[in-house]
C-alpha cells in the first residue's frame, strides 16, 4: 500500500483497519513531510501487526524527486494529503497561504498521483482512494480557497476514474465531512455531524471492498450537501455559511 499524507489520522486508521481485516501488504510506503511522526506510526504497525514499512520524505511545496519513488510497487494507493490553511477572513489576501492550499490540495498533488496512476495502469490493476472534501461541493465564504482546490481535486478523481475504468483500475472519492482530527481540533463541531478517524476508516474500508465510486463518510452529509448544492445562488450568496 502507498499512503500519501501518512501522518493523517484517517490514513493511519485506514491502514490499521485494513491490516485488522487481514489485508496483506509486502510493504507499506509511508510518504510524508514529517519523518518523526511517520516513524512513530511505522513502529506502531510493526509492533501491532508485524507490518514492514518504509518512510519516504516528500514535501509537496517543493520539487519532488521522482527517482526515489521509482521502485515502489503496490496495488493500493490511499491519498489523505490535505491542508486547510487560514480561513478566508485571515488568509484570503495572503498569497503564500493561497498558494500553499492550492499546491498541497491540488496542483502539486495531481502530478504525484498521476505518477502512481501510470504504474497502476500499466499493470492493469489496483485501487486509488482519494480524500477530497464536502467543501468542494460548493464554494462557501468560510473556506473557498480550500474548497475550490478540493472541487478541482474531486473533478480530477472523477475524470481519472472514468479514464482508468477500462484499464481495470478503480478510483474512489471520499468526502469525509466534519472529522475529529488535528485539522479541526478546538473547533466547535456538532458531534452528530462529526466522524472519528476510526469511524471514517471503517466506512472507507467497506466502500473500498464494494468498489464504490464516491462516498460521504456519514450518510447525513449526502442529505446536507444535496440541500446546499441546490439552494438557488441568489439566496446562497446572502447566507453566512
Amino acid at each position: 500500500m502507498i499512503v500519501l499524507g501518512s501522518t493523517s489520522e484517517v490514513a493511519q486508521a485506514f491502514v490499521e483497519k485494513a491490516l485488522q481485516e487481514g489485508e496483506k501488504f509486502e510493504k507499506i510506503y509511508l510518504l510524508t513531510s514529517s519523518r518523526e511522526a511517520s516513524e512513530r506510526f511505522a513502529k506502531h504497525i510493526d509492533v501491532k501487526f508485524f507490518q514492514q514499512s518504509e518512510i519516504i520524505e516528500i514535501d509537496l511545496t517543493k520539487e519532488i524527486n521522482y527517482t526515489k519513488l521509482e521502485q515502489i510497487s503496490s496495488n493500493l494507493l490511499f491519498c489523505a494529503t490535505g491542508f486547510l490553511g487560514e480561513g478566508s477572513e485571515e488568509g484570503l489576501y495572503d498569497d503564500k497561504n493561497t498558494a500553499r492550499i492550492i499546491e498541497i490540495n491540488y496542483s502539486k498533488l495531481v502530478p504525484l498521483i498521476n505518477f502512481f496512476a501510470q504504474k497502476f495502469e500499466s499493470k492493469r490493476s489496483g485501487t486509488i482512494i482519494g480524500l477530497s472534501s464536502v467543501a468542494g461541493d460548493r464554494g462557501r465564504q468560510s473556506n473557498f480557497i480550500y474548497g475550490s482546490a478540493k472541487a478541482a481535486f474531486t473533478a480530477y478523481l472523477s475524470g481519472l476514474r472514468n479514464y482508468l475504468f477500462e484499464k481495470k483500475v478503480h478510483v474512489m472519492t471520499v468526502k469525509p465531512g466534519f472529522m475529529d482530527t488535528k485539522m479541526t481540533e478546538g473547533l466547535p463541531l456538532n458531534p452528530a455531524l462529526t466522524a472519528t478517524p476510526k469511524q471514517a476508516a471503517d466506512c472507507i474500508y467497506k466502500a473500498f471492498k464494494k468498489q464504490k465510486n464516491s462516498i460521504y463518510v456519514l450518510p447525513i452529509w449526502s442529505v446536507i450537501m444535496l440541500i446546499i448544492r441546490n439552494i438557488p445562488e441568489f439566496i446562497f450568496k446572502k447566507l453566512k455559511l
Partner: protein
Amino acid sequence: MKPNFVKKVTNWGNFPVVEKEMRSEDQYSKIKDFVLNHNEIIARGNGRCYGDSSLAESIFSTKKLNKFISFDRLNGIIECESGVLLSDVLEISVPQGYFLYVTPGTKFISVGGALASDVHGKNHHAEGCFSEYVIDFKLMNEKGEIITCSREENSDKFWATIGGMGLTGIILSVKFKLKNIESAYIRQESIKAENLDEIFRLFEESESWTYTVAWIDCLQKGKDLGRSIMMRGEHAFPHELPEKLKNNPLRLKKKFSPTVPFYFPGFALNSLTVKIFNYLYYKKQAKKEVKNFTDYDTFFYPLDFVNDWNKIYGKKGFIQYQMMIPKDKGREGMQRILETIANSGSGSFLAVLKLYGKENPEAYNSFPFEGYSLALDFKVDKNLKKLIGQLDSIVEEYNGKIYLTKDSMSRSSLTNYLKNVENPKFISLQHKRILNNNTI
C-alpha cells in the same frame, strides 16, 4: 471558525462537569509549547477516573499519544505511549501469550493513567501494584524537558510520579513487563457468603489464590449484613480447559457489547431497584459454590461488557467511594461502613470488597496498604454529602485512606497523602480542592 479548545469535560462519573481548555498533541515539540505557555496543567488519558483528578484549568489529553513503540516478545517487555489503552495492549499481547501483571476493573484506562494512579487489581495481595512491573517511563517536566525515569535514573521523579496523580509532569511513554499466560481463560470459583464473618474468613482462606474479590450486597442489615459472593481465580492452563476451548486457548471470539443509548432518568436508580438488582445477582447463583472457566474479559472486566454504563446513573452523575482500612481493624471498620450505608438507604449498585497485601514502601504515593478496601458507587443527590461525611469520619477513625483516582468530595485529611509533587505548573482541580480543604 477560530479554535478555542474550551470544552465541557467530565470523567467517568459525570460529576463534576467543567468547561476548560483541553488540547491534544502528538509531537513532543508541540507538547512542550503547550507546557511552557500554560499554567495549572494536568494530563488526562481516557477520562476513566471518577472525580476531578484529571481536570484542571488546562487539560492535556494524551489521546493522540496512542502508538506502540516496541514489544520484546521474548521477554514480554512492551513500550508504548501514555495514551495507549490497556485494552489495546491486551489486544496484541494475549494472542501472543502475555497478560498485564496488574489490571484494574476496566481495561479502558490509559497506560499513563495506570502509572499516575498506580492502579491495583484483584491480585494486590499476591502481585502488588502496576508500578512493580514498570521498567521506565518518559516524563515531560515543567520546563518542557523530557526525562527518563527508572529505579536507577531520576529515581526521585520515578517514585514521586508513581501514584502521583499527574502532578509531576506529563507522562509521555511507559515501558513495562507483561506476564506469561498459556490461555485467555481463568479457572474461577464463586462462593456465596451469608454474612461479613463468612466473607472475611473466605478472604483469609483464599490468600494463596492469585485473584480474589468479593461483591457485597450493601443494602442488607442485621444477620445478613455483608451478604456477598467471593470470586477467586487463576490463569488456566490449556490442558485444564474444556475440549471446545483447548484448540485455540489464546483467542477469544468477538462478543457483542450493548451500549446504553441515553442517560437514564434520575428516578430509575433508587433503593428499590438496587435492592432488586442485588437480590437477583445474589440468587442468580443457586449453589453455594460454583467452579468454572471464564474468559479474561468476563472475569476482569465484567462492566466493560456494557458500553457507556455510566449513563444509568442519570445526568447528575455518580461518585465512586473507595476507601481502605488497616487489616487488623478491617472487619470492624467494614461493619460500621456497611451499617451506615444500609441505614442511609442509599444503596450502591456496585460494592466491591478486597483484601490488600503489604505496601511497597518505595512507592510512597500509591494508595494501597495492607488492609481491606471497599469500593461503592453512589448516585449524586442531595443526601450524598451527608453520607460521605459520615463514611469519612469512620475511615478517619481507623486511620484509613481514600483512593484519589475516585475521590471527588472526601475530606482533605483522608486525601492529602501525596508527597514530593508540589509544582505550580501541574495542578489538578482535585489537588487544588484538597490543598484548600474545599469540597465541591
